[in-house]
């Protein structure tokens, strides 16, 4: 079923949650029942979707906090005299294997595997003390008592299961779980490593673009992801605007790509900023595995895996900023790393912008919309109004001028429920969850 265009307009807020710190990543699990966010302070907050209840059918879909835990702590590398930030760069969920949930979280250097599980029973009955903890006189013990498990209030626990460390010299920008459910990769600026989920003391380097002489460095890896179904295929994007697709079957070290996606540069558009704005900040396979989506500073592009020469579709995210690149360079905004996401059926794509705006593009109808995530606009069940930015001098009612955009309010991280029209949008330290208007 195709998504109606209505969805792009009529969406309502489900939740606005204020995090303690700036949110740095947002990710739904494979069923969409859980949503995890990571923040600059190294915390992970997991939200769980309210189960359907007969009494309050309208409450279905609301997300409540399920578990909060400190995933990473600030560290200091004494050998290199470097501080290692606790900020969570990425979260990836593992396929569910038993009643517990598992996720991988990473900061700049260390990937951790967390288990989130429920406990609803606790043991009761001691031999040597009573339930209040008072020690009994050992001579009064005449019979042995085996503890019994009794129901208790539900408790959600997060426990660290594995720590994958000491494999990255540079900063980790991506992690991705393979469809074999056995391995995952971690990517830093110059290298990609492959890990087995059960083995923490060994990883294999599969891509290494570090030149012998660092002065010859012209390009860094900005993101990488495994193909959703083909266990042997992965892509990585670069700061030069290209994407390489590698086949792990061909050789153990994937320095030679099997496909190379790049759009030829338009010489008429060339400027001082060309290279900076063509740097790819995120790359995502479509759920079908047929397409790739990349985000650079001004556009989102969709590529067909079978066509390397140019993108299939190019969408302008905020073309009106083209004239403001100079000031965006001066305030460093030009280096912001925007992410992009697909909806469940790969027909709509979403990515963030400034002024708490985020953009959606319908690939079938070619319609697009700009929406704003803000506290005032998202009272419970209020319907979001499309926003417009005007470029010229004449500003119509409801339009906002380019010059009054707030560049400190940026939406870098968003997530889309794997099968339903529910989206999560992180605007600095606010998390918004929106859902399409059902009836």
């Amino acid at each position, binding site marked *: 079923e195709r998504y109606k265009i209505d969805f792009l307009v009529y969406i309502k807020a489900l939740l606005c949650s204020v995090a303690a710190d700036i949110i740095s990543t947002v990710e739904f699990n494979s069923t969409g029942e859980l949503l995890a966010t990571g923040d600059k302070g190294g915390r992970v907050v997991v939200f769980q979707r309210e189960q359907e209840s007969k009494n309050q059918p309208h409450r279905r879909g609301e997300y409540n906090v399920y578990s909060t835990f400190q995933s990473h702590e600030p560290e200091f590398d004494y050998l290199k005299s470097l501080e290692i930030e606790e900020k969570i760069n990425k979260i990836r969920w593992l*396929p*569910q*294997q*038993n*009643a*517990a949930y*598992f996720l991988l979280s990473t900061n700049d250097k260390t990937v951790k595997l967390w*288990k989130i*599980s429920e*406990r609803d*029973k606790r*043991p009761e009955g*001691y*031999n*040597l*003390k009573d339930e209040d903890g008072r020690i009994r006189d*050992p*001579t*009064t*013990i*005449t*019979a*042995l*008592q*085996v*503890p*019994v*498990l009794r129901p208790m209030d539900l408790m959600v626990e997060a426990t660290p*299961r594995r720590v994958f460390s000491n494999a990255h010299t540079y900063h980790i920008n991506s992690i991705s779980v393979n*469809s*074999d*459910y*056995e391995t995952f990769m971690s990517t830093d600026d110059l290298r990609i490593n492959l890990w087995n989920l*059960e083995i923490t003391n060994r990883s294999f380097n599969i891509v290494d673009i570090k030149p012998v002489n660092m002065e010859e460095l012209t390009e860094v890896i900005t993101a990488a992801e495994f193909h959703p*179904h*083909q*266990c*042997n295929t992965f892509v990585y994007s670069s700061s030069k605007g290209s994407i390489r697709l590698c086949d*792990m*079957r*061909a*050789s*153990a070290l994937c320095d030679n790509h099997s496909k190379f996606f790049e759009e030829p540069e338009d010489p008429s558009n060339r400027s001082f900023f060309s290279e900076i704005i063509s740097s790819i900040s995120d790359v995502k396979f479509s759920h079908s595995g047929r397409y790739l989506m990349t985000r650079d500073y001004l556009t989102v592009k969709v590529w067909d895996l079978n066509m390397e020469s140019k993108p299939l579709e190019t969408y302008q995210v905020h073309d009106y900023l083209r004239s403001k690149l100079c000031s965006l360079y001066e305030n460093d905004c030009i280096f912001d790393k925007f992410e992009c996401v697909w909806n469940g059926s790969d027909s709509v794509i979403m990515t963030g912008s400034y002024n708490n705006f985020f953009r959606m593009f319908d690939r079938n109808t070619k319609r697009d919309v700009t929406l704003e995530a803000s506290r005032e606009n998202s009272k419970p069940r209020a319907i979001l109004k499309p926003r417009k930015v005007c470029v010229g001098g004449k500003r119509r009612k409801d339009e906002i001028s380019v010059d009054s955009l707030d560049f400190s309010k940026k939406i870098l991280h968003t997530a889309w429920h794997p099968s339903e029209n529910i989206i999560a949008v992180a605007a600095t330290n606010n998390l918004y969850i929106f859902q399409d208007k059902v009836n």
Partner: protein
Amino acid sequence: MAGADSDDSLYPIAVLIDELRNEDVQLRLNSIKKLSTIALALGVERTRTELLPFLTDTIYDEDEVLLALAEQLGNFTMLVGGPEYVHCLLPPLESLATVEETVVRDKAVESLRKISHEHSPVDLEVHFEPLVKRLASGDWFTSRTSACGLFSVCYPRVSSTVKAEIRQHFRTLCSDDTPMVRRAAASKLGEFAKVLELEYVKSDIISLFTALASDEQDSVRLLAVEAGVSIATLLPQEDLEALVMPTLRQAAEDKSWRVRYMVADKFSDLQKAVGPEITKNDLVPAFQNLLKDCEAEVRAAAANKVKEFCENLPEDSRETIIMTHILPCVKELVSDTNQHVKSALASVIMGLSTILGKDNTIEHLLPLFLAQLKDECPEVRLNIISNLDCVNEVIGIRQLSQSLLPAIVELAEDAKWRVRLAIIEYMPLLAGQLGVEFFDEKLNSLCMAWLVDHVYAIREAATCNLMKLVEKFGAEWAQNTIVPKVLGMANDPNYLHRMTTLFCINALSEVCGQEITTKHMLPVVFKMSNDQVANVRFNVAKSLQKIGPVLDSNCLQTEVKPVLEKLASDQDMDVKYFAQEAITIVFCSE
């Protein structure tokens, strides 16, 4: 036992039971490890009705506790009342078989397999088989992967209807949605095939094998290779060609290097399973291809198998096959671009000489050995040197010694201390094969140079090496060649070198015997007790303690004791400590 009035023997058990839920993991682990003691105290009835239900729900614990629990339950049959009640152990093991930690699950499966043999045929169908079915159709893949390992233990002992169900369940798991379950099924396919009737091997197993071997996931296909080897051993020779070989041939040419690697890794088993005819016709060309594979990992795995493959070739055509098909590939590998390939080859290539005999070795293999001895990668040279004994038997080491020496010298002076360490370890072997003359002339100075290496691990290995050399060449040789040099170092201005003298004495005194020790070494040790460096002095104390057993009691009393007593009143704390310790051990132990 339980219920006796204020029984003292209850107290330790009560502690154990309480500690089953202690906050400290170590205490919980201790309790779990003594679970049999608890069960014994409770008696079979209470173990069944109280302890086991409690344990069934204790799956929230740390992995190591769960692992210990899974292991304990495998030996619990007598504690629940014997084979009649063994099925009571199924619930806790079932819940352990679904946890996410692979080692725990595997241990639970192992225990389940163990206790399956203790079930009567009736209990197996009433209790065990339903458990296998429950696991096999569980919601989570963890339980389904565990089920894969249980089919083979119950299949031989159930009725034919149940057998048909089990086969069906296994089939279903082979085409499970998740790669984890298909991997588990693929890894148990060979084992399951072994307990099936031949007709079902041909009908069921072959089709499952074919399907798994062409799975979309590399990790499943590579496990099917191993299953293929097991299946091949079960089938009569005439069926192999039609049923197994097409799939195995396909695996040897798989697009994914990991699958080809697996074929190379299992090549010797495969060779044994398919027999000489297929080996000659199919495996020889396949092996040649693997040796020439474009992926270095595959070439290295194949290179590792060269010797074994050649050894297992049918005798009538062995030499021809090696000379015409294998050796040309081996020659290419000697100059491979990848050092892991070369070093894998170097670790086995010497073994070919026994298979090919003296003349072929001199004509064809020797040039390869010499080339590898000059390889730029130290590991390759080391692997050649470490396997010299095989060549020694066939052509004598003299043929090689001209090239050997420069190779050894270069390794001995390698900038990486781990390389130096590795070559030291081969010195006793080399010395034995090259003979004392050659050694004295060429290698002795190297061995002495290592004693003053700037890396402690090298100096330590060098002292140990001296001891082994003396074991080989005898005390007299030691007295003439080694001991004077070692003792000479006692006057070295560097205190680390002076300490090396002491370490050498520690290592050599026993092999050199009482006379040399007393006459030559002891005076030097005594002299060093006046060293200005405290580290040297307390090592004198340690040395005296060490060589004490070699000396006679008169010498101990009149000479050693005064020195140790003097050290015991040294102004340095450590010297005092070690001197006192030496006095206690040497003089008070009897």
